[in-house]
């Protein structure tokens, strides 16, 4: 009787594992993908904050170092513009790297399947 119930437990658990395996491909392209996109988004935002990109954008028209006279404002504007372009470029590169990662995530299963196909046939 005891052995019987232990066996039943094992069967139950195996069924659970089987279900998990079947759910795997679906998860990869639904929840899994979503997690990756969210993670990359956070990462890019974090990187952006480290560079202070948005702060520079917000203060585009604010003179630097308290130089509130006209020449000061003009110089500030262009200096900030250069900074924003430079920083924006770095953020962009980082974002592209992240995008590549997401694309990898999407094509990885298909690519691996293709490689296995090549190896087998």
């Amino acid at each position, binding site marked *: 009787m005891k052995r019987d119930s232990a066996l039943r437990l094992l069967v139950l658990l195996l069924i659970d594992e089987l279900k*998990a395996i079947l759910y795997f491909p679906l998860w990869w392209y639904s929840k899994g993908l979503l997690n990756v996109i969210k993670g990359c988004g956070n990462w890019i935002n974090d990187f952006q*904050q480290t560079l202070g990109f948005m702060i520079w954008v917000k203060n585009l028209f604010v003179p630097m170092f308290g130089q509130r006279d006209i020449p000061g404002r003009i110089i500030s504007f262009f200096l900030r513009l250069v900074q924003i372009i430079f920083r924006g470029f770095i953020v962009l590169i980082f974002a592209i790297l992240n995008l590549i990662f997401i694309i990898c995530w999407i094509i990885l299963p298909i690519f691996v399947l293709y490689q296995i196909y090549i190896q087998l046939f």
Partner: protein
Amino acid sequence: MENNSDNLQFLVCSACGGSGLVDRKKCKTCQGKGMTAYLDGYILFWGEKINTRFLRLYKLERFITKAVYIILFILGLFGIFCLGYAFYLDNFINILNLSFWQIKNPLLLIFWLSIFVDMYLVYYFALSAAAKEKVIVKKYKSINEKGIIAPPELDWQTIKKLGRKVDISKAFSEEAILIIEHAFDIAKKYSATEVGPVHFLIAALISSKNVQNMFMRLSIDFEDFALKISRVAAKYPQSDSEPFFNQNSIKILLKAYRNAYINRSEQVLSSDIVVESVKSDKLIQEVLTDLNITPEKVENVVLWYRIREILHKQWLIYRGSARLKSKTGIDRAMTALQTSFLNQFSEDLTLLAKSGYLPLCIGREKEFAEIFRILEGSSVKSVVLVGDAGVGKTAMVEGLAQKMIADDVPEFLQDKRLVSLSISQLLAGASISIAQERFYRCLNEIIMAGNVILFIDNLHDMIPELIEILTEALSKNAFIFIGSTNTEGYKNVIERSSVGSILKKIQINEPDINSAVQILEGKAGFIEAKNNIYFSYDALEQAVKLTDRYMHDQNLPYKALTLLEEVGVWAKNNLGANVMVSGNDVATLISEKLGVKAAEVTQSESEKLLKLEEIIHNRIIDQDEAVKAVANSLRRARAELRETKRPIANLLFLGPTGVGKTELAKVIAEVYFGSEENMIRLDMSEYQEKSSISRLIGAPPGYEGSSEGGQLTEAVRQKPFSIVLLDELEKAHPDILNLFLQVMDDGRLTDSTGRTIDFTNVILIATSNAQTSFIQEKVNAGVSLEEIKRQLLETELKQYFKLEFINRFDNIIIFKPLGLEEVIKISRLLLQQVAKNLEAKGINFQANEEAIVELANEGYDPQFGARPLRRAIQDKVDNALAQYLLTGKIGKRDLVILDKGGVIRVEKAKEL
């Protein structure tokens, strides 16, 4: 502190009685939930089934999960190994060639398959992470909102429609789940009918390191505790069938969840279960009470661990955000200016916080909210923190710097610098006009920079010229200013000056005992690490409670913190490394420091206390009633049975002169306060004028001698643990007696400068010769002392003291006049003293009985008690001895004998 909506409202299914099962099938009414609780709009239930079968399942599941992880990991590694081997076989030549990858190769096939395995590993990991849920996050509510959301009337029909249903079992930490399962096993071992709180507690104690540590902090004797708790477990109802989780145990789990919810922790921890188990079982509480632990103590220790955890998290956040902050003093948008001049006289607190040099600030959320509200809302952005030294004003400002680093502040404070300007540096080596100029330049830079929040500590120390400049600058409203000052400084300097009307006052009060303990809990870790010791919870609590009680001239938490630091060093030097510092260790140290009796009564001391009468009688002859009354009040005081808001005892000694009143006071000083020196003696005959009040409590400010302080107040301030002896009280002016009304009632007195002097640790003794002849007369007539006292109180004493004054004494003690017999005994005592003095010179002294009686007769005077006796001994014995000594008639080791008729005989010692 909890509001109504935080309270759980339970609903138990009547169809299944809370078990969730009817005829071994899922109950239809409650859908197997059995019992739910309503919490702030959420429906909570325990979703995990626990019985032998399921426990086995869970164990198996855990095993399989672990096994799957290991297998997947090995397969993944194997794939990479195969790839590497394929490269090796190829001699790393063609690996970048497409053809290499297209040729059929079993090693590559294995590699590609292993990639799938790796992907599955990621998936498996994500799944098990998703299976855990976090405790729902408590919403912040405004004060007005509290308690409005009254829980609705619940029944199973409404529950189906109501709010979100939360299976709390998913939010329990792994350890907590193990404890619950273990509790079931333990209940089974004890063949208990139901799983109860005691099983949770035992399981937690066995399987959780954290819980073990917590109880260690309570300095518990584990063996004793285990024995007692297993006895409690044995008392639970027993049966042969499998135990089950009854309503009470599910309630404990639901309440544990609520604890985590209120404390905003992400998971329900083992400590939450322990706290609720202790709270819900009377028997456990009794066991703990027996070990000197209350449920509150358990809760506070849990809080301690939580504070440490919170501090650690806070620290991580600070460190994480600190990297974003500027090192140069320029804001991130680079709109600010450098302040090179200001930097010479100031310290950048945000920069210090960024580098991690400032200690963390604990609590004070309410005060921070007030600062933010005032700075944000009002038109003038200047506040002053008013609080006495040591309450934590500076700690708050440093805390603000850290909050700014973590951006945990309103937007207008973000990306700014908090700069502390040092007035002493401003004034150093400069005339007033130069200091003014410096201050001007600093303020100018601050305004120009635009990102500086100025902090000036101890505003009241500023010279008026600088205050004027500050006022002018603040009225322009061009920068944010935070100042700090103490209560006295605010009243005397700030409020009276022009700046007072601009600054918004924020009162920083001394934290209460519990908050102070929490602050200490946050700081204890550093002291522990520094000295390599551990504090028990009692040590922290005692540090706060004892300093609160005995050190009135400083404030919490500072005084408790400095004491704790001292205890740390003391423990390291006296107890050694890695020891647990107990509450009594703290008490011992404070006793040594202040000369009070704060430590627990030791065996020898309690013996001494029980034999107090005997000890006093070594110096006081007869006066049994008086000695007994005094001994009793000292015992009461030492056993902590007295009111702590009054002096230890207020005693009035009545009786003729020379019967031992003052002597008894001296004995008390020696017995209770350790030395006769600890006595403040005031001869009240010197205070017969009304104007002498100013001598007692100090002259008012501006008068001559105002800086010296009062003779009474200053003495008590310096020696708060002593006897205050008021000799010949009846001679004092009635207004001065009124002054003592407050002392005797409230244990405090305000001196002329407005300082409150603490009298709660003194023994107040007044002596009086009033109505001596009445006492003598009655004693001679054979009236009992009790009766004399009654008559005195009813009639005779009223002409000297007001009734309300007499009533304030705890005890009025009548000293009876001495008879010849007592005087003989006293003579013996005094001659013993003479013998002692001679012994120090190496000379032996004896007095034979007849000589003693003769001396007593000579020194006895019914009117003056034993006072003439001292004179008699001086004349007859001391004088003669002095002559003998000076003429060299007495040598060392000689025996001097006092014979009848005052004859002094010397027996020479044998030659060596």
